[in-house]
């Protein structure tokens, strides 16, 4: 086994265990923390894949912004205790069976799929900011501009939903 394979297995183990804990832990705050661990493991994978810039952005955006927003809402609504009501087992079993079936069918379908690589195209520097920036601002100019509309509508919407009505 190569060193990189050990790193891969370790990171994957951390990611999957903490993802499972996210689903199984009853306290929402713990779930947030487990999700952050998963995000760090995924950032480790990005580093392993030579996507350094993306790893940094991933940590800043997900662990830094999105999860803080989650924590903030949990604290604001005071949900930081185990309030989840006890549920019957049948829906839970059904959920587990459905997800398990999805896992099985997806793995069976992609099993043996080969990604055909062009040997000449194997450039290990594609994850650097230089290359990403060039692609983003040349080829992906339009989606970049369009995403501003997405943000604007999300912002208008969030403000509209959360502002108090004056009567």
């Amino acid at each position, binding site marked *: 086994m190569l060193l990189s394979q050990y790193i891969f297995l370790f990171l994957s183990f951390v990611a999957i265990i903490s993802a499972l804990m996210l689903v199984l832990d009853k306290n929402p705050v713990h779930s947030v923390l487990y999700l952050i661990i998963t995000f760090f493991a995924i950032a480790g994978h990005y580093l392993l894949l030579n996507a350094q810039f993306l790893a940094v952005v991933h940590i800043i955006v997900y662990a830094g912004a999105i999860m803080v927003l989650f924590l903030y809402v949990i604290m604001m609504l005071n949900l930081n205790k185990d309030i989840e009501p006890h549920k019957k087992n049948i829906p839970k079993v059904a959920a587990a069976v459905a997800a398990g079936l999805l896992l099985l069918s997806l793995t069976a379908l992609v099993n043996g799929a080969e990604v*055909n690589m*062009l040997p000449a195209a194997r450039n290990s520097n594609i994850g650097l900011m230089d290359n990403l920036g060039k692609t983003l601002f040349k080829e992906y100019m339009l989606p970049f501009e369009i995403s501003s509309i997405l943000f604007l509508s999300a912002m*208008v919407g969030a403000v509209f939903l959360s502002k108090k009505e004056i009567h």
Partner: protein
Amino acid sequence: MKELLLLSGLGVLALVAEIINARKLIYPFVIFGLLLNIGLCYHDLGSNESIYGMLRLDNAALAFTILFSVIALVWFIMAKNYFSDETNISDHFSLVLFSLVGVFLLSSYTHLSMLFLGVEILSIPVYILAGSDKRNVYSNEAAFKYFLLGAFASGFLLLGIVMVYGGVGSFYITQIAASALLPYGLSEKLVAIGLVLILFAFAFKMSAVPFHFWAPDVYTGAPTSITAYMSTIVKIGAIAGFYRLYVGVVAVYAQYDFFSSYLLIFLIIALLTIVVGNVIAASQSNVKRLLAYSSIGHAGFIILGIAMISPTVNFTTWYYLLAYCLANILTFWVLIIVSKQDNAEDISVFNGLVKRNPILAGTMTVGLLSMAGIPPLGGFFAKYFILLDVIGRGYMMIAIIAILASLIGVYYYFRIIIAMFAKNPIQTATIEIGSFTKLLMILVSCLLLAIGIAPEYVYNLIF
């Protein structure tokens, strides 16, 4: 490019109008802008413009743009009351206009990133609009359910996109289609699973059975104007996106093994959608819910038409959408006026409508007859063209099942018509509507009749 700038510019303009205190100007500007958009698209027909290689304004894309602009125009006229609240008016306008940008992207994308952004730009404003009646718990719940399931579906959409990317090595749909013919670098398994996941995500957005379960709840809970919006414009967006992928990419893979199973999957989905939509609609007593289920049934017909991939598939899809959306907006228009008067949405509010206001009853009848597929209205020819394609491909049984299911449709549409003409009104007060509204209702009804009488004229106009 002009159309994209115009639509997003209108959205920004609506926000600016709030700042400079010109809220009264938004409405006329939006109407004018949409008319301008129709004119621009009509002028551009045949230009095949490519925008940064990410969008291509071919004739199908422009036809869909004209379609949704026309429907949006009628919708804005219909939903005038929805925009009467001064405090939120510019929010509502800008959200609706931004979601129109999403529909535009979905009808013209050539790159999967635009497909993804288009779906999201279409959906996110609609999540909010569904919850725009903030004090109403039903509206809140509709927004929440729509959001949750929409986000869940976009997860599957993304998984599909990444699988296709892994299989082909590109996001451009021209390259994905080209790799079917020149299979270098193609991993067939990944492409097969990826495309089916993307199509399932679209089936969710189109509310096709078995991904339909959110639709009746969301349609019932949302404010009625927004329900009309969701069952017309949002559906046009989803179907345009589905159409582009299915006809532009999936059909090219026809010689691969997985294509025949795709065809089977989509025939089954289409049939299930037609049957389940119509059968459940027949048992509903809430008119809003009834229209929600009937819109599911209509989505099934459109999917059936697309799955056939006949040479005229662009026209049959377009024409069905036009006839369905006009009729749907007419029925919602009457429903909004009647249910506002009586504060109920049951079928019984339509009892004896003809005595209370004959114009409303007439408009509703035209809309319902068109949706039921009675000649010579637009809805009849829409169904006829699709069934012609289905029979032309030799699927006799499917055509028969579809016809039987739409006969069930005739039953519940006539239930409302009978209630309007034969039963005695519960409340006898006449319903007053403005003469301008009256004129517009008659105009839209005549339009629906006109496209039914002369479909070949519509064909020559656009295609």
